[in-house]
């Protein structure tokens, strides 16, 4: 049986004005377990707290009920008081008789009656309280960044600068991501490579950063502070530490007709290749699907020309196991496939391209060395039509597009249009749009310059059909403002394809037990207040994997995620919230209902041997809650039909006791 002390606070006249505090203290004295009851002007004051400490000692109290303001206000205060008095801090319950009683009721009799009932409920709960101790777990002081685009690069650099080792896992042979493919960046028009490549070099040279390129995350177990990750390093058949990146092998490779991913297939590369000049790591990679030597053992030229002796045709995929304290997801985005958008003739004509392909066409390192030429005949296009929102804001066509706004297209299209008019003033440029969305620093000014200074023809309306006819592309569109149909003979059509999360994100989310929305963007822990944390403790979000973003936004989120990671890694130990779920293994059926509703992946299963009353043993599957991962929502406790799963601090019998006390 508990020995409970009840302390009724006046809060000056805030409570005492509408609640007869003496009557409350008197009434609660008779509740089961209550051995001491007092009232005082300000319980939270030093004198009030001392009064509690004295009473605990004098009356050997085991539990405390404070009838006062909201627990959101002073629960922490009184828990500390209890601790100072030598009690477990979780033996305290607050009856909220100010915000939820004296302040909302005017009549003394009503207020007093309700305060007594709220006090009784708190007493009933404390009677069932048990001392709780938050668990502690050590923190591995190393971070993993998944994805080596600008988001991953920035996050890794910031964490490394703070002194913590960071590993970047990048599935491509080089880091750099989408930004490395871009030509110029809006709204400043500085060259993407000029600002990105120095950062890539910083990453390569940083002593705290390791890059696992051509690698993927294979498996993740563990929890915040203690993740165990298996990384699959795919065989690139080139010894990374030996290759000097001289490129002799690339020159001599006889397999020259492999579509070049970096240029989106608009030109070819060799079977052994370095994606681009500034690649990091600058090492060659052999494409096993294209290399004759690997496919049928006939060739071996690269190994002959490699003076460093870096080629190793026998290389195998390698699994690296490493421990991490925090994981940052920076898996980025891709433009959606245009296969389902037949109306734009993307698959019929080479001269219908996506905006990312346009970037490559205007990039000095691209297939045309930066000259804007039509892919079909390498002639200069004189009329270019840009189509916005291809697959974005597509509520009615969800089967082929996306419902959301891809956010970056308005700005990059303005950039493309402006740059085209700047370099080739003889080119007519049309932009078809639903709306032009330009919130952002200097964004609207940028768009207006495109229209006003560069004479880009913006037309509100959607393109209905693009049909290739001879060398031209017949574009049929509607002009909504002038309410007429337009036909344009274009030389080049550029589609602002919607962007979607990278395909690797969904399986990764499963491995991380991080939640995703229906569009496969990672969900943040709180949409407003915790935008860079995933709901899974220790997993953080950086860049477009969380939602469409431009570069400055990505970089700020990347740095924010890094700050959160640093905040986690500086701790030696993590103290958990002790109000977590616990499974009673004797009652657990192992049915997995709890695991399915757990937003944090805190529940795992194990087979355990039980001794039965008849002296036989029985192996049963039972649930186990990892207290370091559980956040204490209680979803599992209701999903569990047997009641094996319970929440400490808000246990079934505690809440039931409160219900009973209120309904008496």
């Amino acid at each position, binding site marked *: 049986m508990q020995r409970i002390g009840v302390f009724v606070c006046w809060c000056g006249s805030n409570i005492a004005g509408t609640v007869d505090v003496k009557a409350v203290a008197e009434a609660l004295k008779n509740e089961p377990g209550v051995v001491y009851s007092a009232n005082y002007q300000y319980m939270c004051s030093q004198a009030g707290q001392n009064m509690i400490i004295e009473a605990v000692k004098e009356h050997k109290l085991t539990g405390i009920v404070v009838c006062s303001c909201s627990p959101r206000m002073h629960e922490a205060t009184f828990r500390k008081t209890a601790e100072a008095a030598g009690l477990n801090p979780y033996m305290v319950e607050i009856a909220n008789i100010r915000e939820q009683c004296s302040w909302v009721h005017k009549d003394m009799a009503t207020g007093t009656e309700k305060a007594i009932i709220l006090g009784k409920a708190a007493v009933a709960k404390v009677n069932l309280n048990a001392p709780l101790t938050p668990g502690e777990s050590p923190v591995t002081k190393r971070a993993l960044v998944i994805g080596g685009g600008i988001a991953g690069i920035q996050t890794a650099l910031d964490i490394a600068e703070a002194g913590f080792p960071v590993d970047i896992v990048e599935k491509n042979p080089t880091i750099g991501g989408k930004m490395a493919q871009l030509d110029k960046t809006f709204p400043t028009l500085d060259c993407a490579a000029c600002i990105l490549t120095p950062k890539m070099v910083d990453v390569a040279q940083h002593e705290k950063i390791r890059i696992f390129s051509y690698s993927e995350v294979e498996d993740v177990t563990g929890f915040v502070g203690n993740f165990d990750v298996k990384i699959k390093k795919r065989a690139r058949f080139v010894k990374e530490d030996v290759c000097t990146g001289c490129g002799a092998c690339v020159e001599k490779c006889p397999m020259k007709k492999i579509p070049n991913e970096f240029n989106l297939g608009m030109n070819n590369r060799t079977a052994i290749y370095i994606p681009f000049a500034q690649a990091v790591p600058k090492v060659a990679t052999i494409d096993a699907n294209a290399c004759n030597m690997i496919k049928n053992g006939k060739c071996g030229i690269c190994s002959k020309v490699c003076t460093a002796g870096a080629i190793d045709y026998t290389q195998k995929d390698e699994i690296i196991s490493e421990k991490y304290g925090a994981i940052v997801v920076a898996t980025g985005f891709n433009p959606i496939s245009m296969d389902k958008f037949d109306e734009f003739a993307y698959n019929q004509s080479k001269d219908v391209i996506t905006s990312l392909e346009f970037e490559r066409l205007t990039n000095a390192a691209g297939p045309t060395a930066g000259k804007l030429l039509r892919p079909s005949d390498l002639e200069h296009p004189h009329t270019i039509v840009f189509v916005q929102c291809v697959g974005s804001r597509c509520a009615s066509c969800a089967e082929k597009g996306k419902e959301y706004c891809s956010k970056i297209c308005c700005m990059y299209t303005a950039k493309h249009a402006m740059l085209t008019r700047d370099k080739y003033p003889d080119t007519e440029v049309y932009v078809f749009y639903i709306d032009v969305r330009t919130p952002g620093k200097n964004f609207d000014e940028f768009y207006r310059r495109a229209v006003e200074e560069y004479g880009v023809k913006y037309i509100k309306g959607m393109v209905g059909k693009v049909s290739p006819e001879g060398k031209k592309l017949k574009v049929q569109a509607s002009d909504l403002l002038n309410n007429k149909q337009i036909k344009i003979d274009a030389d080049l059509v550029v589609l602002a394809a919607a962007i979607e999360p990278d395909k690797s994100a969904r399986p990764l989310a499963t491995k991380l037990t991080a939640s995703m929305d229906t569009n496969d963007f990672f969900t943040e822990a709180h949409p407003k207040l915790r935008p860079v944390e995933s709901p899974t403790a220790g997993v953080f979000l950086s860049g477009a994997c969380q939602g469409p973003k431009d570069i400055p936004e990505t970089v700020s989120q990347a740095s924010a995620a890094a700050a959160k990671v640093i905040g986690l890694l500086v701790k030696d130990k993590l103290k958990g919230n002790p109000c977590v779920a616990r499974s009673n293994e004797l009652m657990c059926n192992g049915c997995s209902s709890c695991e399915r509703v757990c937003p944090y992946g805190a529940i795992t299963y194990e087979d355990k041997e039980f001794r039965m009353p008849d002296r036989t043993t029985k192996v049963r599957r039972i649930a186990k809650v990892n207290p370091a991962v559980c956040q204490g929502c*209680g*979803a599992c406790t209701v999903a569990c039909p047997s009641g094996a799963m319970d929440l400490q601090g808000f246990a079934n019998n505690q809440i039931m006791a409160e219900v009973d006390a209120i309904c008496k």
Partner: protein
Amino acid sequence: MQVEEYKPLIVAFCCNWCSYAGADLAGNNRLNYPADVKIIRVPCSCRVNPMFILRAFQRGADGVILCGCHPGDCHYTSGNYYTRRRMALLFSMLDYLGIERERTRVEWVSAAEGAKFAATMNDFAQKVASLGKNKRLEDLRCKK
């Protein structure tokens, strides 16, 4: 017959992160609602077991209301979505058993919606009061 004014007994389960704070805000702003409403704090609306609700009715509650974060705003990301399914089904079942539907309610009230909290409680208490005493669910043994 008693002539005493009938006072309904209402149990409100409130999520610690939103509606419990909303109730506090209603208090801060001195917004009145009937003292018949007694709040029980839970970490998330998804902590509310149908057994708690039935128990409250069994012990003489006249109405039970559950308040949680607005869909999409759950502190634990998905708790209130489970609440929504569980309560939609439970309340539909109670209705099927002939229990007045106005005695149960789920309401999404954020920490910033003190006024909504008070208005919700006023409205709910009034509806429950108009139904009169809950006779269909109470357990007579629990009466003193």
